[in-house]
């Protein structure tokens, strides 16, 4: 039986939910992955093979059913250059390994995210606005003006503004194009309702205070992707 790898903090609600729904799960945090995980990635431009190791478990690529990647831990601070270098190298290696996995990875993030998450979020929001022909907001609107919508695998979760649901229904391929171009399968989109301007995109929404109905909608869909 193949294993679903859940890379998330122990209290991550989506990882907890998905962990209960998939047949076999293996959990670790991003920090454990980077500092103690084992990886082997061999490629020649035609074939790719490899294996991941977490704790005492080793998983050849073909035995990984899917990966839920939800990095939320604080990034380590390195006082010494060597520590920063090793962290940089580990990230570059795991970025390539997770990207190379033949299974579903939610979300499958390119080097830009690992290098500069904040700038990558800007890029995701720019691309979302461009693909869906929506205005882009670069200022910080008042929190009460901002509405959030959760997109998952070409669809919008319940609770999204009605106009956004209509807009996506009128442009059915646009969200899919954005997801294909960015590797993002699940994200929270923050939008100013009045002007329909895209404020931000978070590819790793915390969901800690999300309504149970939202988690109940997203969780099974993610589990189906990863099982």
């Amino acid at each position, binding site marked *: 039986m193949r294993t679903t790898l859940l890379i998330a903090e122990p209290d991550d609600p989506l990882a907890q939910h998905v962990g209960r729904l998939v047949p076999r799960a293996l959990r670790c945090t991003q920090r454990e992955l980077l500092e103690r995980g*084992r*990886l082997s990635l061999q490629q020649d*431009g035609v074939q790719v093979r490899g294996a991941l190791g977490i704790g005492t478990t080793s998983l050849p690529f073909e035995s990984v059913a899917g990966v839920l990647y939800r990095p939320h831990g604080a990034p380590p601070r390195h006082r010494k250059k060597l520590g920063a270098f090793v962290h940089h190298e580990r990230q*570059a290696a795991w*970025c*390539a390994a997770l*990207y190379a996995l033949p299974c579903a990875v939610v979300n499958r993030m*390119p080097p*830009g995210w690992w290098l500069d998450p904040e700038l990558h979020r800007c890029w995701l929001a720019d691309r979302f606005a461009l693909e869906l022909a929506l205005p882009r907001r670069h200022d910080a609107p008042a929190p009460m003006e901002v509405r959030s919508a959760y997109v998952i695998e070409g669809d919008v979760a319940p609770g999204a503004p009605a106009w956004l649901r209509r807009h996506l229904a009128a442009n059915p391929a646009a969200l899919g194009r954005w997801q294909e171009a960015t590797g993002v399968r699940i994200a929270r989109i923050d939008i100013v309702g009045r002007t329909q301007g895209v404020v931000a995109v978070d590819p790793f929404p915390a969901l800690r205070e999300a309504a149970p109905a939202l988690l109940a909608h997203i969780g099974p869909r993610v589990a189906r992707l990863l099982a």
Partner: protein
Amino acid sequence: MILVVGAHADPVLGRIVSALEQNAVPLARIDEHNPRAYRIEYDGHHWRVRGDACQGCRPVAVILVRHSIQAATRADRGAWLDLKRALDTMLLATRSRVVNRPAVDTDNYSKPYQARQLAAAGLRVPSTLVTNIPDEVLRFVAAQGGRVLFKGVSDRTTVPQMLTLDHLARIDSVAGCPVQFQEFIEGDDYRVTVVDDSCVVTRGVGGEADCSSAVQKALPGDLLQRCIACTRDAGLVISGIDLRLRHDGTACVFELNPCPAFIHHETDKHPRITGLLVRYLMRHRHEGSDVLV
């Protein structure tokens, strides 16, 4: 108007700026070695750069970026990072042409990731193992007949080295940090510098670049076209592609550098790459813009 972003002291930028000035092209500069001098504002329609000689009123059609990471002190570095953050946000969002736009120039942060992109573009890449498992290294070395190079995985500068018995005696140390191991390829080193739909070929000889015109014809045309195509497909205008030409005529690509220090691959007398880049910038200098300096 062309905007040049980077450090005044960068010799690559210096050469481009001299060439633009010789052509009397209207030019503005942001000197990243003086990060506190600038501020960037967005009013909902336009990005305005103010400070130094920038007054936030002249439209910019093309922006050339070569970020500088040299900062004298920690405080300077903080100011530089703040400026870089503001600049990159603007450079991502602007309708102006950017050479090269941030976020699309990050693939070489992870060399094995980039190798996949290069292979997908139809370029041959070497057989590579990235691992922190000592036994995997031994298996790879045996499969390669013992001739293996090793180097870093990320964009941090590391010097590729041939793996020796001395290294193998300490191979357990890879458990602390993943390393990239690559098949050794016999042949001659070349750099293909792509600028838009043109390229310049140079050959590496003992650490120096042979920029002679004869070298231009050393690589097959379809290989050069693939180099141009993969640069364009990556969303880049300029790139430096390092490859090795085997004696059987096939080429193996090692990496694509999105910010090449190309002055080492042209001569003062014949600055061909600078010429291509300056012509590209001048060709687009009248396009529409939402950046004002």
